[in-house]
C-alpha cells in the first residue's frame, strides 16, 4: 500500500508538479498596516462627494492617527495590465493624482468624467481618431474610480489601492434596458457585521464590537481554539440592505437584465493568535446564508488582543468591526 501511495504521489507530481510550501503571511497584525478602506456612500455618481475611511492598525489595535496620503488617480490602466489600477498611480505625486488629504480618513468628490474615464462611456477621441474603447464592467456590472493611499512608514512607502464604485449607466444595453435599469437599480450599501459570536455547544457567546458603549471583551484561555461566526443582515428582495444585497445587473452573456445577489467575503484579522483561514465567505449561490465561520486559536501568551472582521461585497462595499479578547492563562 505504501508503494501505491508513493506511486500516486509521484503521479500527481507529474501532472500538477509539486508546489513549494511558502509561508503565507498570517492574518496577524503586528506592525502598522492598512487593513481595509471604505467609501461612504459605497457607490457614488460622478460629482458626488464621498467620505473615505481606512482601517489602519498595528499590534496594539486600530490607530486613529495614520500617515496615510490619499489621492484619486485619474489615469486609466492599459488594457493589458492585470493589476486593478495603472502602475502610474503608485507614485507619491503626479499630475494624474488628485490629492485628498492625509490621515485615517479623507473626503473628496468623484470626478465628473469618471464614467468616461473608468466607466461605460467611450473616452474622448484624440484628434483624427475615433473614440476609444469603454472600460469593461466587473461581474456585478460595476465600474470603479481608482483611489490610491500611500503610507509613509519608517521602512519606506507602501501603497494600497481601492476602487470607489461609480454609479454609471449600462454598457452595451438597449435604450429600453437602460431605462429599466435606471428605475430598478438600487445603489450599493456597505455591508456591516450584524453579530460576532463564539460558537459553542448549547449557546453562543456574542462579542460586542469595541465601538459599543461599555463593551466588554470576550475572555478565553491561552491556546484555546474556538469557532467564531461573523453574521450580516439577511436581505430579502431588492432594496437597501447591509448584508448580501440583491440587485439588478445587465448580464453581458444573455444581454438581459437579471437579478443577482452579492457574495460576501469575510477577512479575519488579529493582533495575536491565528485563524484557520485568512478569509471565508459566502458566494452568490450561498447568499441565503448570512454568516460565515472561522476557527481561531488564541495566543499562548496571556494579554488583550484585538480581532477584526472585515466584510466585502461584490459591488465594492466594505464594512468592519473591531473586537477585544482577553487571553488568560
Amino acid at each position: 500500500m505504501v508503494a501505491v501511495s508513493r506511486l500516486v504521489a509521484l503521479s500527481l507530481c507529474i501532472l500538477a508538479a509539486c508546489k513549494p510550501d511558502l509561508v503565507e503571511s498570517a492574518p496577524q497584525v503586528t506592525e502598522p498596516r492598512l487593513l481595509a478602506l471604505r467609501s461612504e456612500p459605497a457607490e457614488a455618481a460622478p460629482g458626488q462627494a464621498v467620505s473615505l475611511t481606512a482601517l489602519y492598525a498595528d499590534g496594539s489595535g486600530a490607530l486613529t492617527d495614520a500617515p496615510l496620503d490619499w489621492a484619486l488617480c485619474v489615469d486609466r490602466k492599459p488594457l493589458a495590465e492585470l493589476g486593478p489600477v495603472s502602475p502610474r498611480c503608485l507614485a507619491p505625486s503626479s499630475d494624474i493624482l488628485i490629492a485628498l488629504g492625509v490621515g485615517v480618513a479623507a473626503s473628496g468628490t468623484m470626478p465628473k468624467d469618471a464614467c468616461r474615464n473608468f466607466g461605460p462611456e467611450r473616452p474622448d477621441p484624440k484628434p483624427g481618431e475615433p473614440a476609444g474603447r469603454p472600460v469593461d464592467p466587473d461581474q456585478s456590472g460595476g465600474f470603479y474610480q481608482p483611489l490610491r493611499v500611500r503610507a509613509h512608514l519608517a521602512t519606506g512607502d507602501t501603497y494600497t489601492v481601492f476602487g470607489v464604485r461609480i454609479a454609471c449607466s449600462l454598457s452595451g444595453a438597449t435604450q429600453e434596458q437602460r431605462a429599466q435599469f435606471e428605475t430598478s437599480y438600487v445603489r450599493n450599501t456597505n455591508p456591516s457585521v450584524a453579530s460576532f459570536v463564539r460558537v459553542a455547544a448549547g449557546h453562543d457567546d456574542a462579542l460586542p464590537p469595541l465601538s459599543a458603549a461599555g463593551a466588554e471583551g470576550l475572555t478565553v484561555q491561552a491556546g484555546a481554539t474556538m469557532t467564531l461566526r461573523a453574521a450580516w443582515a439577511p436581505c430579502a428582495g431588492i432594496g437597501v440592505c447591509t448584508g448580501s444585497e440583491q440587485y439588478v445587473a445587465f448580464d453581458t452573456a444573455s444581454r438581459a437584465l437579471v437579478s443577482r445577489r452579492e457574495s460576501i467575503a469575510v477577512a479575519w484579522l488579529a493582533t495575536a493568535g491565528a485563524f484557520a483561514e485568512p478569509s471565508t465567505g459566502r458566494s452568490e449561490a450561498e447568499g441565503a446564508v448570512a454568516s460565515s465561520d472561522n476557527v481561531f486559536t488564541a495566543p499562548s501568551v496571556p494579554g488583550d488582543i484585538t480581532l477584526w472582521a472585515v466584510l466585502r461585497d461584490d459591488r465594492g462595499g466594505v464594512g468592519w468591526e473591531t473586537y477585544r479578547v482577553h487571553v488568560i492563562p
Partner: protein
Amino acid sequence: MRRIAFRYLAPLLAATSVLAPQAASAQPSAPPGGAKAAGTPAPKLTRAPKLAQFVEAPYPDSERAAGRAASVVLQIAISAAGHVDEVAVAESAGPAFDQAAVEAARKFVFEPAEIDGKPAPVKIAYRYEFVLRVEQKTTAIFSGVVRERATKRPIAGVHIDVADGGSAITGDDGRFTLDDVPPGKHAVTISGDTLTAQQTSETFEAAKELDATYDVTPKGPVVEAGDDDDLEIVVTPPPLEKKVVSTEVSADEAKRIPGTQGDVLKVVENLPGVARGAVGSGALVVWGAAPEDTRVYIDGVRVPRLYHDGGLRSVVHSDLVKSVELAPGGYGAAYGRGLGGLVTVQTRALETDTYHGSVAVDLLDAAVSARAPITDKLRVGISGRRSHLDGILKAAASKDVEDYFPIPHYYDGQARAAYQIGPRESVEFGGLLSGDRTSRSVAAANLAERKTETRALHFQRVYARYEKQLDDGATVSVVPYVGADASTLESRFGVVPTNQSITTTLYGLRAIYRGRLADQLGITVGLDAEVSQATLRRSGSVSAPAREGDIRVFGQPPTDQINVDDWKVTQIGLAPYAEADIALFKERLHILPGLRFDPQVSSVSRRTPLDGDTPSIGRFAQDAAVDPRLAIRFAATAQISLRAAYGFYHRSPLPEDLSAVFGNPSLTAARASQALVGAAFRLTPSFSIETTAFRTESSGLAVRSTLSSPLLAEALVGMGQGRAFGAQFLLRKELGAGFFGWVSYSIVRSERQDVPEGRYRAFDYDQTHVLTALASYDLGRGFEVGARIRFATGFPRTPVLGAYYDGRRDAYQPIFGEENTSRIPAFVQGDVRFTKRWKIGRSELEAYLEVQNVTNRKNPEEVVYSSDYRQKGFITGLPILPVAGLKWSL
C-alpha cells in the same frame, strides 16, 4: 548476391511415343488356355488402344535436384474395357523414375483396343519420358550494386524500390537483386538513411537480367531519414523532399528512446532546435517560434496538435507511424501558413502478408491496433487508445483527487483502408480522431481562491489519398480531407469567469505532381488549399486566457473586468506552388527554387462590439502573399555537404484573435523570413555531425494593445515583431550493431518587440541552451537498455520587485521589474529505460521499465510567490518515477 531464378517445369510425358509403331507394339494377348486352334486364322488387331486420360507423374525431387532427365519404358496391360490391369518396367531409369512412372501409368485410361473388330485386352509398350525443362521467364532480373560515388565503397542498407516491381535492400557488399521485375520502363527509387532519396528509371526485358551500378553521394552529416536532426536537403530528380533542414527519425529508433514510453512521436522533443516544453504543456517551441506557429501534418492532413494534454502521449498510435520529421525552418514551398517549424508524420504502409496487431498497457493508458490484408488489393488497419490514469488515481487515492489535480483524459483512434487499384496506382481512405479533457477545481474557504477549470479539445479528420506513378516515373498525389475541431475552456477564478469555445470545420486539399522535365531538372507543382469555418464564443476577462508577452506571475488572477463576444470567422486559402530541383556539376550542386502564391480570403461576422440592438456589421478582407523560397545543397566532398536556405512565410490571424471585444477583426497576416546555413560531415557511414545556423524575423504579430484607451475593436494590434537566431548541432550515430544515439545542442535567442521602437525582450518560450544526449543499446537475448540526459535553460520570467495591496479585492498585487529579465533555474534530468522482448511464436511480448529523473532532482518548473509576494519559491517537476508497461505485438 546475384541470384537467377529458374523455374523447373513438371515432368512432361512424351505422349508422342505412345503406341508409336517404332516405339511400342501391340501384342494381342493369348486366348485362354494358351493354345491356338489349328486352322483358325490368327486374330488381327483392327484398332489400336488410344490413351484417353493421361496422368502426369511427379518429377522425383531427388532427380530434379540432380538435374537428371530420363525415360522409362513400361509394359502396360490394358483390359477390354480400357482400364490398366498391369504395369511393368521394361527399361528402367532408376527407382525414383520407375516408381513415379508406374504409379502414374496405373491411372491411365484407354479407349480399348479391338481385335477382329471387337474390344479385347492387349499389352503395349509405353515410353514415359521425364524431361527437365527450364521455364521461359516472363519477368526480368534486376541486380546491381550501390556504391559511394567518391570512394566506390559499397553502401549497405540502401532501399531499392522499383515501381510495381518490388524492393530490395543492399547487403554488406552493396549488392541487391530483384528476381521478378515486370518488363517495361519503371521508376527506380534509391533511398536510405544515409542517402538523399533519388529516383531514376530503367527499362527491363523479359527473361533478361539488368545489372546496374549506382554511384551515389551519401547525405552529408545531415541525415535525412532517421538520422540527424536537422539538416537534410533532399534533392535529386525528382526530389522526394524539399526540406533543407530537417531531421527524420524512423519509428523503430524513436520508440526505443528513453522518456518516450515507446511513443514514436515523442522523439520530436529530443531533436535539435526544439525547446523543452513546460511541464505538462505538450507545446512545441521550435527555433523560438510560438507553439501555434509550428504546423503538424499526418500524411498531408493538418491536425491541431501533436500531443495530448500534458504531453504524455502523441495523438497517433505508434504502430501506424513509419517516421516523423521535424523541419525547424527553411522548408520548401509545399507547406505554409505557419511562421515556425513543420512536423510531418508519415504513416506506415499497411502490411500485405498477413494480419498484425498489438495490445499495450501501462500506467497512463491502454492501446490496441490491428492491421490485415482483406484481399490481394485491399488492406485495412485500425487502432485506438484511451487513458485510464484517472481511474487508477481515483482507485488508489481519494475519490476527489481530480478536484485538486488536472488529470488528463484522452483518447485517439485511427482507421485506414488502402486499395491497390493497379500496379502503380492506389487509393486510401482514412480517419483519425482525438480527444482531450482536463478538469480541476480548488475548493477554498476564501472566495477569491476558489478555482475551477475545464479544458477540452476534440478533433476528427476524414481523408482520402490517391497516388499514382506515371510511366515516366513522375508521381501524382491528391489528398482531400475534411475535419472538425472543437475546443472549450471553462474556468472561474474567484468570482471571475472565463469561457471560450471554438468550433471549426475544416476542408483541405493537397495535390502534388512530381516529375522531371530534363535529366538535371526535377519539378514539383502542387496546390495546398484550406478552408476553415470557425464559430467562437468567449466571455470573461480580456486578460484570460493569458497570452505570450503578458506580464504576470503564475497563478495570478485575471482582472475582474469582463465582457462577452461571439463571432464567426471564415478563412479560405488556395495556395498553388512550384518547386524545381536543378542538379549541376554531376549532381553535386542542387539548387531548389520555389514559389508559393497564397491568396487568402477571410470574413469576420462582427467588426465592432455588440452595442444594444445595433445590427452587427461584418468584415471581409482579401490578401495575397507571395512566398519565394530557395534552398541550395552542395556536396563538397563525399563526406562534407553544405546547405543554405532562405524563404518567406506568412500566417493568417488566428480566429480567436479576430474578436471585436477581445481581439481585433482587422488583423492581417503575420509574416516571417527564415535564413539558414549549415554543413554536415559524415565521419563514417553511420556516424555524422551536422550544424546549422539560422536567423528568423517576423512581423505583424498580434500583441495586446498597450494603450490605456485603445480604439474600439483593437484589443490586439498587429504590430509585434520577433526575431530569433542561433545554431544547432547534432552528433549522431545511426542504428548499427544494436546501438544508436545522438547528442543535440541548440543555442537560441528569441526575442519580441511589442511596440514599434520599443525594447526587444526575451520571448516567453526562449531557451538559450538545450542539450539532449541519448543512446540505446541492444544487449542481445531481447534485452535493451537506453539512457537520456537533458539540460535546458529555464524560461524567462518577469521579476517581482514588490507588491501593493488591493483593498477592494483584499489581495496583494505584484510590482514588476523589467519584462522577462530573470529566468527559472535550469532543468537537468536523466532518464533510463530497460526493455526485454520475448518471441512467442510469431508474436512478440515487450516489457519495459522507464525510470524518469533517476537522480530525483527537484527541477524548478515555475516561479510562485506567497500571496503578499514577500516569498518566492518554485514549483518543481517530476520526481524520480518508474513507469512500467507491456506490449504484445503480432
